[in-house]
């Protein structure tokens, strides 16, 4: 049955039919979109996972080096060493459109191109562990940026997939069945109306013919005559 009250009119029927066609096409397109998004998302998430493992391992190693450095130097000396960083990272952001989802693209620039500028301290008063630590951190920085890029993309795409999936499901399980039910209801109602009109017309025709030719009276007379003839013989 139709979910809500619909007007059983021909106009409503054409409107609903047109709407159903649109809904079906939309459903197909959204489903395709969802499938493609899902495919890309899974690729991205695998990449994200690999990067994350790599970065976490890298940071762990760097932290170990920092702890070692901290052990052989006083805390003040470490603090002084990092007081005035020479290097500066600047980030240029762009967007890439993947299946209507804008995902970020980061390109980074360092203020000075010299790779040795990460050592912001004199080498005389610091331990070599500190150099190792800084070096290991700087080595994973590109990967960290890539991780940021892919992780953000994953989050954005996940949100988009969820939205698309809801839309697909709403169309598939609610909108389209409802419309089909309404269409069926209207067609049945219209058919029923047509049949009842037909019957009414036939009945009226019968009545008019009766009035014109008096079939019934004639039939009765003929019947009586037949009876009389049978009674006589």
């Amino acid at each position, binding site marked *: 049955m139709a979910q809500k009250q619909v007007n059983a009119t021909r106009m409503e029927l054409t409107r609903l039919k047109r709407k159903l066609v649109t809904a079906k096409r939309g459903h197909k397109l959204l489903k395709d979109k969802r499938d493609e998004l899902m495919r890309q998302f899974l690729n991205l998430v695998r990449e994200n996972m690999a990067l994350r493992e790599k970065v976490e391992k890298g940071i762990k190693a760097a932290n170990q080096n920092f702890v070692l450095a901290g052990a052989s130097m006083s805390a003040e000396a470490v603090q002084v060493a990092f007081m005035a960083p020479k290097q500066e990272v600047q*980030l240029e952001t762009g967007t890439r459109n993947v299946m209507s989802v804008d995902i970020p693209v980061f390109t980074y620039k360092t203020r000075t191109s010299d790779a040795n500028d990460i050592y912001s301290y004199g080498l005389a008063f610091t331990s070599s562990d500190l150099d190792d*630590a800084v070096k290991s951190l700087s080595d994973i920085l590109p990967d960290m940026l890539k991780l940021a890029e892919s992780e953000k993309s994953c989050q954005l795409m996940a949100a988009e997939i969820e939205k698309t999936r809801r839309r697909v499901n709403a169309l598939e399980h609610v909108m389209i069945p409802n419309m089909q039910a309404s269409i069926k209801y209207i067609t049945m109602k219209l058919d029923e109306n047509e049949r009842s009109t037909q019957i009414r017309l036939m009945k009226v025709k019968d009545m008019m013919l009766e009035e014109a030719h008096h079939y019934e009276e004639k039939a009765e007379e003929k019947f009586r005559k037949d009876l009389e003839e049978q009674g006589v013989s």
Partner: protein
Amino acid sequence: MYKIAVMGDRDSIYGFATLGLDTYPFTDPQEAGRKLRELADGNYAVIYITESLAAKLTNEIDRYRSQMMPAIILIPGVSGNTGMGISAVKKSVEQAVGSDILFGKSE
């Protein structure tokens, strides 16, 4: 032109300063939350947060999940890896697919 910030406890993040990232050492989650909001509204495209600090700031971080900027990325701190970063990735997968289809077997 955007910048990169690192937040967390001092010991975990001071090294990033030499690479040219801006470091914001915090241990108090309330203060850190306030700073995070300030950074997110400001000129920062990527904010790295240590897992231990992020654990106390999940509400603040979730707010920026669906936004393009900034990307808030969890990194392990000096105290070790808590697995929160990985679980954030799993959360994305769960949101998209409905269930964890990639990493379910690894644990």
